[in-house]
């Protein structure tokens, strides 16, 4: 749990027409090979992706498992796996119809074998025909629940507080991308000020430090999933910044 609470902040928001996941990357350095840098957001399937907070190596195992489970389902049933089912599979005792597997997942690791739990929390976002757009949070105990908006990692409490005030039902993706961003960047600034990142220019959260992903429906009704490009991220953060200025001014006076 400690590793997770110190991990780069990650936020998920459920809108009426899609879900967003955004995460702050902790490991940024001029020497890091950007092209291969996938630290926070991972695609699981055509309609689902997840954000990670915690021990990266543990996360990788679980992500592989999630991807495999999703494909095994599609193989057996010729249908995309429903989001909740995928989340349950990683939390419980393995979801295969053909019988339980040994070394059961998250929960199993808390009860059997003398092994340690996975030090990872996930935010899983996706779409299925049964429940539409969904957002789930899982923790090392194997517990999970569905959320309209959630934050994990550093300063998640602050983020949750802000979201509690600002999340409204019926928000659309565009809207969700903006005001929440305003808060996200505001809070990220606060967070980066708190977190010791000496090499970074803390005044401006840029695409280098952030990963954003969305799953949404096109006007034709097709479900699409994509990571926002650097330019889009920068624009969003830039748009959010003036609002920040007002808030800083408001709180200063």
């Amino acid at each position, binding site marked *: 749990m400690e590793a997770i609470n110190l991990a780069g902040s990650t936020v998920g928001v459920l809108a009426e027409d899609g879900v967003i996941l955004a995460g702050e990357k902790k490991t940024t350095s001029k020497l890091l090979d950007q092209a291969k840098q996938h630290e926070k957001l991972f695609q699981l399937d055509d309609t689902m992706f997840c954000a990670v907070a915690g021990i990266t190596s543990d996360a990788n195992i679980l992500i592989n498992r999630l991807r495999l489970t999703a494909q095994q389902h599609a193989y057996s049933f010729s249908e995309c796996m429903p989001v909740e*089912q995928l989340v349950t599979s990683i939390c419980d005792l393995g979801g295969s119809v053909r019988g339980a597997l040994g070394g059961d997942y998250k929960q199993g690791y808390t009860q059997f074998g003398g092994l340690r739990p996975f030090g990872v929390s996930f935010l899983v976002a996706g779409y299925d025909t049964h429940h539409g757009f969904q957002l789930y949070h899982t923790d090392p105990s194997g517990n999970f629940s569905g959320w309209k908006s959630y934050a994990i990692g550093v300063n998640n409490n602050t983020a949750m507080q802000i979201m509690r005030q600002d999340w409204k039902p019926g928000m659309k993706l565009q809207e969700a991308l903006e005001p929440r961003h305003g808060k996200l960047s505001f809070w990220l600034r606060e967070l980066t000020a708190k977190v010791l990142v000496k090499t970074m220019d803390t005044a401006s959260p840029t695409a280098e430090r952030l990963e954003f992903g969305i799953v949404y429906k096109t006007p034709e009704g097709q479900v699409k999933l994509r990571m926002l490009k650097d330019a889009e991220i920068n624009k969003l953060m830039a748009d959010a910044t003036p609002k920040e200025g007002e808030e800083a001014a408001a709180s200063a006076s």
Partner: protein
Amino acid sequence: MGTEAMFGLTGKDFVILAADGQAAYSIIRLKNDADKIWKVGNMLFACSGPPADTANFMEFIEKNVKLNELRTGIPMSTKAAASFTRNELAHALRKGPFQADLLIGGIDNEGPSLYFMDYLASSEKVNKAAHGYGAMFTLGLMDRYWKPDLTEAEAIDIIKKCIKELETRFIVDLPGFKCKIVSKEGTKDVTL
């Protein structure tokens, strides 16, 4: 397998399946009112073959579909059930095959679906299908009389024509045909 007759077709918003009622052991007819059409979830599975294999396989599929429904809280779609069933046949094929031929009928959001599946694990979504030697007689008739958006009455009429043809021309006398329909309202028996 050959001397059993099973056939089915899709209607406007339903699927109709028919199967003979003969359960045989060598040259002895054990039963003339056997029910070979299984209710699996909210779908119908007609299964022919040696009773050992058909019962074993169908019970397995039936319970797995049920388990899936309980675990997920959602009824399985026909497409998913057909895919899962086909997978089971395929896995067993090169180990200990199930000698089961199936016709799977169900209603999904997209409308009625009928799947033809055989013991070699081939599977196709079709509008009309038949298994066994009886197929040689019934497929032609179904081709002649089927059209899109059949009403229940029209579909039952075609089934009756098929059975009459088998009675006339098939050397094996097949008694006790059972007929069932699956629609949005559920499954029901049809008295022919």
